[in-house]
């Protein structure tokens, strides 16, 4: 991404504050999305995202420009989110109350709202990597390459996860009597 390069150049030039001011809005959704895809809890994901940006601020002097800026940030996010998961010491469930309420209230008991809730439950029931790929891919219509970089996986593996996830979701919704086709 061109913005990432500009930020990287600012860091290399020793202009930490200017770099950081651009870095936070440029990476906010990506960092939050990645944290959320791992933690499945909006509050926890936001805490992790905050922690990531503070870590980034402190680690900026150590960024040498050898790795891509985004790759470096994704690695920090993944590690921070995994540490947070370990700290919580419980297996997280997809029934994030905040999101679930939001999804249900969106439809205000309408049929569409219930459909979304069912879809949300099915996304939550997907295996970890498939769920992560779906959340990151559809959060911002990202290219698969970007999702792969965020997850730290090869592009083809992510494509497979997405394909399987879509097939599972379609089957689950069809099984629940929803019209998918």
């Amino acid at each position, binding site marked *: 991404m061109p913005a990432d390069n500009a930020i990287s150049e600012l860091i*290399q*030039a*020793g202009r*930490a*504050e200017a770099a*950081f001011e651009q870095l*936070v*809005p440029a990476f*906010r*959704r990506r960092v*939050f*999305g990645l944290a*959320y895809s791992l933690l499945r809890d909006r509050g926890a*994901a*936001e805490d992790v*995202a*905050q922690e990531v*940006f*503070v870590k980034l*601020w*402190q680690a*900026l*002097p*150590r960024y*040498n420009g050898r790795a891509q800026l985004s790759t470096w940030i994704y690695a920090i996010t993944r590690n921070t989110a995994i540490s947070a998961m370990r700290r919580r010491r419980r297996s997280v469930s997809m029934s994030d109350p905040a999101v679930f309420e939001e*999804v249900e209230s969106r439809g205000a008991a309408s049929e569409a709202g219930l*459909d*979304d809730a069912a*879809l*949300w439950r099915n*996304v939550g029931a997907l295996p970890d990597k498939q769920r992560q790929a*779906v*959340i990151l891919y*559809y*959060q*911002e*219509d990202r290219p698969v390459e970007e999702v792969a970089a965020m997850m730290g996986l090869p592009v083809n593996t992510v494509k497979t996860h997405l394909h399987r996830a*879509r097939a599972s*979701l*379609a089957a689950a*919704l069809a099984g629940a009597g929803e019209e*998918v*086709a």
Partner: protein
Amino acid sequence: MSAEDTGRRNLEARLRGLLGGMDASAGFEARVMQRVSMLAVAPREDLRVQFERRRELRRRRLRREVWMNGMTTLGLGACAAALLWRFAPEIQRLAANSASLIDPGLLAVGTLAALGAGVWLLISRARG
């Protein structure tokens, strides 16, 4: 368009609708900036020091590379000179034989081409 395609598009549209708006809550950036401003100013200083250190390291690496390149060229030149000196009679005989076998014009072109390639290599290395 097949029913499968329609189904897939429908599912994708719903996933986009469901996940597309996902973002941190309002005021997230302000909270980050507040947390960062509460930290010591050390990282800014640290960043400047690190930047200077990296620049110095780069400068030293370049100097080392220039020295190494110079020594390599000198070494190769010395080896070539030693070989020429050691095998001077054989080279002279070979050159005399070659001159009688090869067209002098072709030999001149070949020699110029080899010299040109050598000079080009030296220039491109010096630029790189």
